[in-house]
């Protein structure tokens, strides 16, 4: 018998119909993947299950009995536990305090917190996840993003003893390294063997193939297919998701890299980076590779003029080093930040305002008065370039799907025909279709002579898209490799060990 069966779920936000009579059935003790492009309705479904969004219609049974879900407490009582993609931690509290949040806390004399017991509880839960080395007393803000995610997961898992039956994991591996992912997968196996079910939402096809039993695909708010993983394959799932065949390939380079140097970095060191040294030519695409948090984002921000350089020189578009984050845009440099919601978008404001923000002066009358018609024209044009889908340019950005939000950030970046484009994880949390659009766009810009520096945690993306890859080992530039003939395994090896550089060159 199924643990959870829902049917006929619909939800409308304003004019957007996020779910249109979708269904989902999760069996006991299975790991069930939920896939779909951004905007397919996965996030809305998760919010409905968590009790934080009320559906317009829904029929739901748990253990075959119809149940109503009126709020987050109901979801908790039904044994649903949630692990969210976005980190949800209080940075200045300890690991143990973060894990205990929202749960009954061990006490002494009824009032005082029993710290030893609290820390012991936390340690046990962390140990179970294979990360017993994390001290429960550490302030969580000091941990890496990956470790923070593992702590959040451990916190949710430690609730198992209190009747947890279904774990909903939304992109749990987004900020984990390969090693950390393996630890999580081991825990998922344990949960499964204990009889709990897991609803696993991810864009990462390989993970789904490796750890899931069943896969359900949504498209445009509707259920498309549910199949045992063993009876389907990557290509078929992508077809279900997109409704069409998408080549799992990167658009090839069609124009040669130019000769002129657009950006020259001479032996730059900062607090995080060391010995960064490269010259970027017109139309060239340079990837920044390395393990998680090796300094990739910091390198892009250094190029933007953020942070303090300890030594070295940066010359961009024949202007001397940028000192202020407002300079790059006036020097033909555009930037797509890593966290689009936190660093990129004004969510409550219209698409137009988001796109034109860095270009206001260029579009204005006499450098002072806003020229709305030109602003709308630019937004419409750039929206077309990035293949943005919306209900009109006045629509607030929060109403868009993740992929379309990313396209808004891209539309802003390409708005003034940049000569140097800095992209921090440009396809993070973006679905397959939007990903391909973004790849095509990067190629087009490069073909028009725009140089690109991009970071990515996907090896295939670095190899498929970039001409060369600068490898960072803990902030230090170890080498720059050409991507011709480079394999994922080779590249990954270079992330771990400096010696590999010599090996590949031999």
């Amino acid at each position: 018998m199924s643990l959870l069966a829902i049917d006929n779920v619909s939800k409308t936000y304003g004019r957007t119909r996020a779910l249109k009579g979708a269904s989902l059935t999760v069996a006991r003790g299975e790991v069930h993947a939920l896939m779909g492009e951004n905007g397919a309705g996965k996030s809305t479904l998760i919010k409905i299950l968590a009790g934080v969004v009320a559906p317009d219609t829904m029929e739901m049974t748990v253990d075959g009995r119809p149940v109503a879900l009126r709020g987050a407490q109901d979801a908790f009582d039904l044994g649903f536990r949630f692990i969210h993609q976005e980190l949800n931690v209080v940075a200045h509290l300890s690991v143990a305090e973060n894990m205990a949040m929202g749960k009954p806390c061990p006490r002494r004399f009824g009032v005082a917190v029993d710290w030893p017991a609290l820390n012991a509880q936390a340690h046990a839960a962390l140990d179970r996840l294979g990360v017993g080395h994390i001290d429960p007393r550490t302030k969580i803000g000091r941990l890496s993003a990956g470790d923070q995610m593992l702590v959040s997961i451990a916190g949710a898992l430690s609730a198992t003893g209190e009747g947890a039956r279904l774990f909903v994991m939304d992109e749990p591996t987004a900020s984990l390294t390969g090693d950390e992912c393996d630890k999580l997968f081991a825990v998922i196996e344990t949960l499964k063997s204990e009889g709990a079910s897991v609803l696993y939402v991810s864009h990462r096809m390989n993970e789904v193939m490796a750890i899931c039993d069943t896969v359900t695909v949504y498209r445009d708010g509707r259920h498309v297919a549910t199949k045992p993983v063993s009876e389907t394959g990557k290509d078929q799932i992508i077809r279900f998701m997109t409704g069409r065949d998408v080549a799992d390939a990167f658009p090839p380079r069609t124009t040669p890299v130019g000769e002129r140097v657009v950006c020259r970095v001479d032996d730059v060191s900062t607090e995080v980076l060391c010995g960064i040294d490269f010259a970027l030519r017109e139309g060239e695409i340079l990837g920044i590779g390395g393990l998680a948090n090796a300094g990739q984002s910091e390198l892009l921000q250094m190029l933007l003029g953020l942070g303090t350089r300890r030594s070295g020189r940066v010359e961009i578009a024949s202007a001397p080093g940028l000192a202020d984050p407002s300079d790059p845009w006036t020097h033909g440099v555009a930037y797509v930040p890593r966290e689009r919601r936190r660093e990129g978008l004004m969510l409550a404001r219209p698409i137009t305002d988001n796109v034109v923000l860095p270009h206001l002066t260029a579009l204005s009358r006499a450098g002072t008065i806003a020229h709305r018609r030109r602003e709308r024209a630019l937004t419409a044009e750039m929206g077309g370039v990035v293949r943005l889908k919306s209900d009109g340019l006045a629509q607030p950005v929060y109403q868009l799907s993740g992929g379309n939000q990313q396209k808004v950030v891209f539309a802003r970046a390409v708005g003034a025909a940049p000569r140097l484009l800095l992209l921090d994880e440009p396809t993070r949390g973006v679905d397959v279709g939007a990903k391909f659009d973004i790849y095509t766009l990067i190629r087009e810009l490069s073909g028009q002579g725009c140089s690109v520096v991009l970071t990515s945690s996907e090896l295939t993306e670095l190899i498929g898209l970039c001409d060369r890859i600068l490898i960072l080992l803990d902030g230090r530039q170890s080498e720059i490799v050409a991507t011709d003939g480079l394999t994922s395994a080779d590249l990954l090896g270079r992330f771990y060990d400096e010696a590999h550089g010599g090996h590949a060159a031999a």
Partner: protein
Amino acid sequence: MAVITLFRRYGTLIGFFAIIGFFAWQLPDTFVTPRNLINVSQQISMLAVVAFTMTIVMVMGDFDLSVGSMASLAGVVAAVLFAQGFPVWAGVAAALAVGLVGGLANGFLVSIIGILPFVATLGTLTILSGVAFVVSDGRTIFGRDIPSAFSGFARSGISLEPVGLAGLSLPWLTVIALIVLFIVWFVLEQTIYGRRLYAIGGNREAAKLAGVKVKRLRMSAFALTGLGAAIAGLMYASRVASANPTQGSGLMLDAIAAVFVGMTMSEEGEPRVLATLVGVLILGILDNGLTQMAVDSYVREILVGGIVVAAVAFSSLSKQTR
């Protein structure tokens, strides 16, 4: 469904017209008359100027608690100079300069030093109030010390004879409020400066990374708010033909309330200066109408506070159910 959407979107505006309609019905002979409406416009002019310029910082998600003390200080500075025989223009210029400098100081604390606006402007509120006491020696400056050219300003205006309203004139205080309204509207809605302020309010980090000079803009916005407070302080001093170190203190909370009421009129809860005008009008009309209906002052305060809370509560409730 459609009716609910209508109320959600225009609830405050409907409430505003309901209040006008109610007074027009209860006070048929005295409320909707040219003279009374002109009176109201003059009565709210000082609050309006503070609220309009307060909108500038609130657009960025900041606010300024020091406007009341700033208004008092500006009035006192001008009056002290008048008492020492300086001409009217000198006193007015000095008061405006004090407003600008005080506003810049707020902006410096908030944007360069990085103190929360609540704490920084609470501090300057106290400092400015203390300075106003020191400058004035704690006294009310009035009578012969105030030149009649200055106090006469608030009692005169543009004659409305040509438009058929014999014996009435549009008070200068109202004219100033209208000019400030136009300038703030133009700056916020029509210039790229205003667009950038809204961007800072939308997401400060994103605005910075998109090339907006956040620190400089925040500082300048606080300076404009300080200048507005000083203008209102001068208007107040002219109207009461005197200045004392506490007379502007009532303006701050009313101005913030007016902006909040206005914010309920925007779908995304953003401050808009024309919406602030509606907020100011609601407060001013309630005072005027309820006085005419001889409602007890304290009951009036309860009503005004209740209506502000109700407007904001309704607006956030309708956002939660969205």
